[in-house]
């Protein structure tokens, strides 16, 4: 994979030589202004629905291995 990535980067590097001084970067193509929705309470997802696809939920929460398991 190292060789493949090098080949891709070599191709991509071509844009490094372009003179783009003063050109504005585009992060988003549609001109939009940020809007806020009214701050009104809405029902949220039921806890069971959100936990249903989780690998090992427990006591109404996501469960993950202990961050310190290796040391304990």
């Amino acid at each position: 994979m190292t060789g493949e990535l090098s080949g891709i980067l070599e191709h991509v590097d071509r844009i490094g030589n372009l003179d783009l001084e003063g050109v504005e970067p585009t992060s988003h193509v549609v001109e939009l202004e940020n809007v806020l929705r009214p701050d009104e309470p809405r029902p949220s997802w039921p806890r069971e629905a959100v936990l249903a696809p989780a690998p090992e939920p427990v006591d109404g929460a996501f469960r993950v291995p202990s961050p310190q398991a290796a040391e304990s």
Partner: protein
Amino acid sequence: MGELGQLSVAEAAARIAAGELSAAEYFEAWQAAAAGDELNAYLWSVENAADYEVEQGPLGGIPVAVKDIFCTEGTPTTAGSRILEGYEPPYTATAVRRLDAAGARVLGKTNMDEFAMGSSNENSAYGPVLNPWDRGRVPGGSSGGSAAAVAGGLAPCAIGTDTGGSIRQPAALCGIVGLKPTYGSISRYGMIAFASSLDQCGPLTRDVTDAALLLAALQGRDPCDSTSVGIEGGIVAPSREDLKGLRFGVPAELSRDAIDAGVRASFEATLARIEALGGEIAEVSLPSAEHGISAYYVIAPAEASSNLARYDGVRYGMRRGGGGDLVEMYETTRAEGFGPEVKRRIMLGTYALSSGYYDAYYGQAQKVRTRIAEDFTTAFGAVDFVVTPTSPSVAFGLGEKTDDPLSMYLNDFFTVPMSLAGIPAISIPSGLAQPEGGGDELPVGFQIAAPAFAEQKLLEAAYALEQGIGFEQEAGSRRPWNGGSGG
């Protein structure tokens, strides 16, 4: 499938609405067709249509094949990835809900390149999709399952997503119509994110009229996606019969691009067809478009590397490892869950965003993006549309480009600039051509791009040209849904 399989979506919807065709009978016929999928086009399809109720609306009773990148409540949604195997989302994507509200119904979920990263469908964790014209060839990608399902007579219509050509290129390689609308036309809510500033949903259909019918239902602002704005005035069925007064720009740069002889001949013949219909051909210049691939393969992987951070074995999908500690679980899950192309792009993206390289890669790519958008703005000052071949070649063989990711990327040469500029573009079949190296003739796609939110004008021109080309007559019995080729 018989006679029902010959109907376009517009024809079937009209017959169902008039009470001349039973929606249940129509759905069951397509359900049986989907169940007989030999192309690996579907990852899941409905098994039980017994509870079918006739829904009212412009798409009343129409089955739709949905790319497996759209979340569908209670049915599997994998995005073609092992890491989401078995995942059933708790909600449905807005695009699918809008189709449903128009009376359509999901027929199945279609195979795709993993997380929409690919141009051949060979990056699916669930095996490649076969091209219905020639099963030894790829259908294109990443919406290859959707394209093959429509072209192969396994669905009357489909939706897909296009980030750098993922609707247009498979549509071209399968001989159908594929439309990437303007960025912001259709909500991305519930559409699994690949590159958020580029991803856009769109239809894959047999003809331009059906594409308009689906777009009319799909487009619109959605409070759940703050970047969605919809198409002002909506979309109606196109009816234009000529191209009088319309100017079509051909990029001057095309003359030195590597295009297969058969594709170039079909493209030239289509330009002559445009003139015969009263349209005018002019030369335009897109000097920055040649850097589109470079900019795209920085921006898209950068956004993907961030979007795909959420697949870590904690909240959904598969979990591996964990006997050690939390970090070991993350690493094992991602190492086993992602395929090689996804890993490649996550590494490229994180590299391009890393401190010290950010300006040279990501910053520079965003500036190239500006230049490409400016090229189109300048071109549209002089012409109504910009036209190119959709793909430099007809469908290539399975395995032909898998060892060389860069050559696979270059396949998106003609579709990526429009994605970076956010403008709409459609691919329509323009004829058949022999692959380089010989063999049976295969479909060629013709791409037409228009200014942002000019979808109606684009569809009108594409419709008039479609009638003029008469691909239906040329392809005739070779159309896989007519029983031709491998179909």
